């Protein structure tokens, strides 16, 4: 137990060590102090000792609730025992006054932000500092993501790809959260988080190949565009189903916990996804199982055409965390520095304390839901434009790094033109790459194809041979 804590402490120190070294010419802004969250937490419960479990089965299973009731118990130590009731789940104080809990708190949960709308650091903010390299990478990846989305969207409109999903307006959530993780953390995405893959090294060509479903596609031509997946980047393949990935993340965290790895699972979902049954069960499971998983909700205001007011009546998603016993925070999702700090802290807590964390990132979905949607049909163009221009997370962070002397307008124009050129090139290359062969229809359904699939493939090939004019000629056999 102590060994583990020491390792965590060292790990934390080594990360902080990097940040405290000033790197020739780079400097930190004035208020770079770290908040309270880095305090080492209570020891991890040892689930791998079955003998302990055997001798105290009941106590083992309810250890976590016991710990809680222990804290609760100390509250009641001074109170007459007549005023405390003992029910399954722990002690509760009773009251003769009939009082209903209000459906909402008096005030909404405040939102953690560190940079103001102009990219200025707010007074007395606490955040996790970043080096100039990380800050520059965060910024340039945000620009790359924004440019990629714009160009691929246009490509869809030109009919070059069939479908695309943009993350316009959510660049800070994508990149800054990815920056706060390590490559060992397992990412279980919804579909609006390609920035995490981008941060981890997925190339622009690989993005384009997947969208064009050509031979270079790691999904072998089987998934819709923007449904990326890469095992080597620890990024689970996107499935179109909403929120079904949340229990997957809990399962992945369970696996990491069994292996005792210094890593966590991270999963993303939207405000709409939080209504799915899987959301509730996943949070509940993660809390009960004490699984190291970070739930990041991109509350962007819209679920296709459903606004928040039609999605839930709670104060957003952050208040639900406590209902399941999950520590939560509300963050300004368009503030890259706040996102980075919150996810960084969440990760430390998740791994060292073996607990789930819920991060609600407030943002706005500037783009349409997908290329199959025209959001001007259900919301005003003014609203969209206001968020796109005045609240752009990319420009906000740009101002901050420019103020620190880490960026310049020359670097800006160079970056933008270079990225644009690379993307256009990637598209042109992807268009010319051969499509996947017919065999890809039948492989990987099982580890080894069964007889019925062999038959079906044979039948298809014969049909193609007999009537080649009825089948697309671009598809190699």
């Amino acid at each position: 137990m102590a060994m583990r804590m020491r390792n965590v402490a060292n790990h934390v120190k080594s990360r902080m060590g990097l940040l405290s070294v000033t790197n020739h010419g780079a400097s930190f802004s004035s208020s770079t102090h770290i908040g309270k969250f880095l305090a080492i937490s209570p020891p991890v419960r040892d689930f791998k000792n079955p003998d302990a479990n055997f001798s105290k089965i009941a106590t083992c299973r309810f250890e976590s609730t016991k710990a809680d009731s222990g804290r609760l118990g100390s509250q009641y130590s001074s109170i007459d025992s007549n005023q405390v009731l003992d029910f399954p789940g722990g002690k509760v104080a009773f009251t003769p006054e009939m009082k209903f809990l209000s459906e909402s708190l008096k005030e909404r949960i405040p939102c953690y932000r560190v940079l103001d709308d102009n990219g200025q650091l707010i007074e007395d903010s606490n955040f996790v500092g970043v080096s100039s390299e990380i800050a520059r990478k965060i910024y340039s990846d945000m620009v790359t993501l924004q440019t990629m989305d714009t160009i691929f969207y246009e490509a869809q409109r030109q009919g070059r790809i069939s479908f695309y999903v943009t993350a316009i307006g959510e660049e800070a959530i994508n990149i800054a959260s990815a920056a706060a993780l390590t490559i060992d953390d397992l990412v279980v995405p919804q579909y609006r988080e390609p920035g995490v893959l981008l941060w981890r090294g997925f190339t622009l060509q690989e993005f384009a190949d997947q969208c064009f479903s050509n031979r270079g596609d790691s999904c072998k031509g089987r998934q819709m565009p923007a449904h990326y997946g890469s095992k080597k980047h620890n990024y689970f393949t996107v499935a179109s189903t909403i929120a079904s990935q949340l229990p997957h993340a809990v399962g992945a965290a369970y696996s990491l916990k069994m292996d005792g790895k210094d890593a966590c699972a991270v999963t993303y979902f939207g405000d709409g996804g939080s209504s799915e049954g899987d959301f509730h069960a996943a949070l509940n499971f993660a809390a009960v199982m004490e699984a190291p998983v970070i739930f990041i909700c991109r509350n962007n205001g819209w679920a296709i055409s459903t606004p928040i007011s039609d999605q839930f009546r709670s104060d957003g998603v952050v208040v639900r965390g406590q209902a399941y016993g999950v520590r939560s925070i509300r963050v300004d999702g368009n503030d890259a520095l706040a996102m980075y700090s919150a996810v960084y802290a969440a990760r430390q807590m998740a791994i060292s304390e073996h607990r789930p964390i819920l991060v609600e990132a407030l943002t706005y979905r500037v783009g349409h839901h997908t290329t199959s949607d025209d959001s001007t049909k259900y919301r005003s163009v003014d609203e969209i434009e206001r968020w796109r221009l005045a609240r752009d997370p990319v420009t906000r962070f740009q101002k901050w790094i420019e103020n620190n002397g880490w960026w310049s307008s020359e670097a800006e124009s160079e970056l933008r033109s270079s990225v644009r050129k690379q993307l256009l090139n990637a598209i042109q290359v992807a268009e010319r790459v051969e499509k996947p062969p017919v065999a890809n229809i039948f492989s990987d359904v099982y580890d080894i194809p069964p007889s019925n699939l062999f038959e079906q493939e044979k039948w298809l090939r014969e049909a193609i041979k007999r009537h080649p004019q009825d089948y697309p000629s671009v598809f190699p056999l």
Partner: protein
Amino acid sequence: MTTIFRGLGALTASNSFDSKKLQLPSPRSFSERKASFLLVRSDGSVNLNLGSNSRARRAEQLITNAVATKADGSAASTASKPGHELLLFEALREGLEEEMDRDPTVCVMGEDVGHYGGSYKVTKGLATKYGDLRVLDTPIAENSFTGMGIGAAMTGLRPVVEGMNMGFLLLAFNQISNNCGMLHYTSGGQFKIPIVIRGPGGVGRQLGAEHSQRLESYFQSIPGIQMVACSTAYNAKGLMKAAIRSENPVILFEHVLLYNLKERIPDEEYICNLEEAEMVRPGEHVTILTYSRMRYHVMQAAKTLVNKGYDPEVIDIRSLKPFDLYTIGNSVKKTHRVLIVEECMRTGGIGASLTAAITENFHDYLDAPIVCLSSQDVPTPYAGTLEEWTVVQPAQIVTAVEQLCQ
């Protein structure tokens, strides 16, 4: 490991089901791959000709009891190792325990599987032995703990997910269909899902309509999964082990009324092939295809039929997806008459698919249309007498065979 049990698929690539060819080589070549496995039949006899074709195997007359309450064939059993006697649910547990000992990534999750030992005691004692984390009690959310199992499988574990009753897995349909069956495919083969989903299903004794579901008919269309149904203690243990070792997601269907079947099974380690059907009783006049509990109704009817002078061939198909068309085909070519006896409902059941598959592949060999006996298309009633008559009874099987063989 999987290549052993995929012999069927690999070899039929070159042969295909060209029903003109009678002489098909045996696709099951156990002897070449794993000499350490003995194919020990449930009556205790040992099959030494593992690589030979099915004719040699059929030379042994296997007669099992209609309801196996005691080990049969005492003469044959003295010739082989004694084995040990246990009930079917204990056989499942034994298989599960052996795999958990062998491979630390195997874990169990489900409702009340931990200290309670599972609602049918299949996981009894495992939590004490392996700890709370490896035998995980989950809150009540089938879709979500199945999803959790999928996520764990994608990350390298081999979870065994238990549905307290198969019917509850209807809640997990989204995860099973959209994720479990698909993610290996849509990820381009990058992520595999070696999960086993198991649980009791079928019509029990007055459990009510919701707890008498036959989910194999709903799941059979899902691409990417395999389905097997166990029916004896021997194949329960063998299929459990094989399912855990398979790299594909496997759904193992157990039956509520078969958990207390007692049988003598071998002491040494063995595995049953996931894609293979089981020849229960060789015969000449008619092929009766069945699985799970109906196997026992069929064997009971078989006794009556033998007395009446018929010689039915009974095959427990075991593999519900994919069908073992090799064994079934050879049988059809011999008897030319097929009767399917299942517990599924008439519409869209396993029997319906099997009828289509046999007709497509072996139409020329049939002397009569395929007869399929299934439960009616009704929710299972609670009253004992009504419930008994929604399930196919031995008397109906006898009548059907008599009509078929006219």
